[in-house]
C-alpha cells in the first residue's frame, strides 16, 4: 500500500512538472501528451496491478510486475551501453583536439 502511494505521488509530481513546462511553452503538445500518457499508465498499473497481467500474458510472461521488471532491466542495460560508447567517443574527440592543438603550437622545425 505504501509503495503504491509513493509511486502515484511521484507520478503526479512528474505530471505537474510537465504541465508547468507546457504552460511555460517549454515543451510541445506532442511531448506533453506522450509524457503524461506514460505517467497515466504508471498510475493505472500501480492502482490496478492485475491490469498489466493481460499484456504480460500476451508475451508469455506470468505476471505484469515481472514484465515491467524485465523491460526495465533491458532498457537500463541498453542505456548503459549507449553511455559507454558515447563516453569512449568523447574521449577520442578530446584526444584529437589535444593533438591538433599540440601540432598547431609546435615550434617550426629548423
Amino acid at each position: 500500500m505504501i509503495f503504491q502511494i509513493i509511486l502515484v505521488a511521484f507520478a503526479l509530481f512528474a505530471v505537474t512538472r510537465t504541465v508547468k513546462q507546457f504552460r511555460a511553452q517549454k515543451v510541445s503538445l506532442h511531448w506533453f501528451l506522450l509524457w503524461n500518457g506514460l505517467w497515466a499508465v504508471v498510475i493505472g498499473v500501480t492502482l490496478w496491478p492485475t491490469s498489466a497481467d493481460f499484456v504480460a500474458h500476451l508475451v508469455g510472461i506470468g505476471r505484469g510486475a515481472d514484465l515491467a521488471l524485465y523491460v526495465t532491466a533491458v532498457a537500463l542495460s541498453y542505456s548503459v551501453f549507449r553511455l559507454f560508447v558515447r563516453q569512449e567517443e568523447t574521449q577520442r574527440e578530446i584526444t584529437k583536439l589535444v593533438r591538433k592543438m599540440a601540432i598547431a603550437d609546435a615550434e617550426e622545425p629548423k
Partner: protein
Amino acid sequence: MKIIAIIPAFNEESRIAAAVRDASSFVDGVVVVDDCSRDNTANAARMAGALVLRHAINRGQGAALQTATEFALRRLGAEIVVHFDADGQMQGSDIPAMVEPIRSGAADVVLGSRFLGKAVDMPASRRIVNRLAQWFTVAISGIRLTDTHCGFRALSRRAAQEMTITLDRMAHASQIQDLVVVKKLRYVERPVTIVYSAETLAKSESSMRAFGIVKDILKDKFFTRV
C-alpha cells in the same frame, strides 16, 4: 632515408635529456611529446635538441605516439619513424639494426624484442605477465611474437601512415600488433637490449595494469564505432 625518433614523455625531467641525446646520434631528428608533465620535461628535452610538442591535457602514451607520428610524417617528412622511450631503458645503439629491414625493403614494421635480445634485470613478475600477454595477443590478433609489449619499434612511412593509434593509454601496444595484421604489413622482430633500473621500475606502472590493457582492448573490439 630520413629517420625520426619519437619519444612520448610524462614527468621525465631527470631522464629525458639523456634519452634524447642517445637517440639523436642515430637518427635525423627527435620529436618529444610532453604529455602534460607537471615537471620540466619539455625544457629538458628542448635543451637536449629535441623538437617538443605539448599535450594540453594528459592523454596517455598511445595518444602521444600518434601525435608525434602525425607531426613527423606531415611536418618533417619522416621516411622511417622509430618509437623510443623517455626513461633510458632503450639503447640508441640498437636503432641502426632496428631500421635496417626497412631500409633494405624487407619489412614495413620492425618490432624490438627483449627476449631475442637482452632484458637486463627484468623482474620475474614482468616475465610472467609478458608471457600471458603473448598468449592474449595470439588469441586476439593471431600474431605470434616473442615480445608483445616492447615499446621499441621502427615503422616505414607507409606503415606509420596506415596505422592510426586510437587506444590512448597502454593498450596501444596491442593495437599496433593488431593493425600490423589488419593492414597486412610485413613485420620482423629484432633483438634489443632493455635495461631495467630500480628508478624506472618504480615509476612505470605495475603489472596489475595488464588488466586495464585487456579491458581497453575488449572495449575497443566490441563497443566502439569510431
